[in-house]
């Protein structure tokens, strides 16, 4: 098992900021790397895969500094954000070549490449040129080259872009399984639902700075200035709203479009949830459903980045 330690890491491209003073400790498991375009995600991934040298600070994988350590790259798998490949090579030739670059013998590389294509569901396309692959198939081949040497640490830059729904499900499950097996997997993605399907642990970057690190729900708890949106379905919503008006934890109440729907904003969700049952019971009301709307990755991301 290998953890990633990032300490005061900064990278500038001339006068343009890449990443600034990032400090984080990434434990084995699946971690989502989130941020809008230009946030510094790719820069961070390139530094962690030893392709770029940090200007200040540094990063280690399993205690070994990442810059200029060739042998460390044997335990790293990287799936870059690229669309074009060696169009003339078949998927099998490409993966064999990649396995050979990892130092495998010719026979082992060929066998591993075949297995990788099988795992990614590309048996039928084994001898097909990559130029004839669909975008989703290319994505699978790219993913396969990142995992074919069974790395300890896997960096995935937009790994599911262009994949079909089944491919996405399979890949997400595979990533989760790798996480369960103790691998460290950092997944960069624009699609928040995808990340949420794989993990609740995230790193959020914006303008090159680390905005948050940790569990989505824990991070949400820390965003105190943003009221929590609670959706309540109650057959007698007018009565319920009258009660909630007197509740000090409630900021605003609005009626939703659906029958019985009541939207409540609160800055103290825990206290609100504690008081709500008593208030409802005392008035003899009933509640069909209650849910917190913005205790999810999308909301956390929006609050942090906006």
């Amino acid at each position, binding site marked *: 098992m290998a953890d990633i330690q990032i300490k005061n890491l900064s990278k500038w491209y001339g006068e343009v900021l890449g990443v600034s003073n990032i400090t984080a400790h990434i434990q084995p498991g699946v971690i989502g790397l989130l941020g809008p*375009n230009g946030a510094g995600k790719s820069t961070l991934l390139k530094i962690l895969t030893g*392709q770029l040298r940090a200007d200040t600070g540094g990063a280690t994988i399993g205690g070994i500094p990442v810059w200029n350590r060739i042998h460390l790259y044997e335990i790293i798998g990287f799936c*870059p*954000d*690229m669309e074009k490949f060696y169009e003339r090579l078949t998927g099998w030739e490409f993966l064999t070549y990649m396995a050979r*670059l990892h130092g495998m013998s010719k026979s082992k590389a060929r066998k591993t490449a075949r297995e990788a294509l*099988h795992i990614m569901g590309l048996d039928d396309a084994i001898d097909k040129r990559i130029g004839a692959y669909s975008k989703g198939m290319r994505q699978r081949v790219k993913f396969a080259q990142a995992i074919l040497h069974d790395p300890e640490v896997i960096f995935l830059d937009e790994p599911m872009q262009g994949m079909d729904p089944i491919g996405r499900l399979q890949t997400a*499950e595979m990533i*989760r399984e790798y996480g369960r097996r103790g691998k460290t997997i950092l997944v960069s993605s624009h699609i928040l639902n995808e990340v949420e399907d794989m993990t609740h642990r995230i790193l959020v970057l914006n303008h090159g700075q680390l905005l948050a690190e940790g569990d989505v729900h824990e991070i949400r708890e820390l965003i105190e200035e943003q009221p929590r949106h609670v959706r309540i379905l109650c057959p007698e919503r007018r009565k319920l709203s009258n009660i909630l008006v007197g509740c000090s934890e409630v900021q605003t109440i609005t009626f939703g479009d659906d029958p019985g729907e009541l939207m409540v904003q609160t800055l103290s969700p825990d206290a609100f949830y504690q008081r709500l049952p008593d208030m409802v019971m005392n008035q003899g009301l009933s509640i069909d459903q209650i849910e917190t709307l913005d205790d999810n990755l999308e909301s956390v991301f929006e609050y942090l980045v906006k």
Partner: protein
Amino acid sequence: MPVYRQTYSHYEGSYLPRSLAWTLIARRGILHAWRKKWFRFVLIACLFPFLVMVMRFYLAANLDVLNYFGFDPGSVRDILDIDITFYYRFLIMQSFACFIMVILTGSDLIASDRRTKALTLYLSKPITRLDYLFGKASIALFFLYLVQMIPCLTLVFLYAFFNEDWGYITGNIQLIFRIILLSHIYIVPLTALILAISSMTRSRVTATVMFCVVFFVPETFVNILRALMDESWMNPDYFTLFSLGRILEQLSPIIFKQEAPFDVHWIWYALVLSVIVGLCGLILNKQIRAVDVVK
């Protein structure tokens, strides 16, 4: 079986020695070029003079054969005579093939990796930037050796073989060194230049145009300046130091103890050539690294 259960066991076999990592890149590139029909055609065309010379060597060693075709062997003996300058002329003739080959094999070597962002794939693998660069350079070097140095050395051996005179080789060790040196005077700078240019663009066409511009434009200016310059003020031959083509033209005859075309000491040309190769190295050092587009 669910897809997540299908996985790998860690590779326990032997690894390729790290020092040989560049050979994988070189082999891949050579095979890639060889797969193209048109490339094979051009390569054979570049080797056509060599095939003609093999015939000539055979005839020079077997003049009696000419009797079958109704020629008088004595009348062509002088034409077929082979001396040290023959090899020099052959190398100069093949330098044109080098020029063609370096463009065909070199212009897309790094440009294609920049275009497809494959550089990031290479650099995240357990290979060094030097492995990558040496592997890529080896592709161009292989084909340049194949059209210039190897045919010329083969001719030396064929001369000995056809004449059954192996003492010709031991007696002409200096000739072999000269052939190797002159070939490298052409091959190394051309390879360094095309790689540097290829690393600066994402397009094969742009790289080809840039290479031709770097090679021919200074030559044209040098020719104009030499024609316009008053010799009483300074030696106009000094302008030839700014043209790669003229530098090669000056250094080549010196290696074969022939008369040099320009009135400037060869050491200056050697120095400028070293500077050009060094500059190419600096460009490659700057260009062959991961880049990130900051939006």
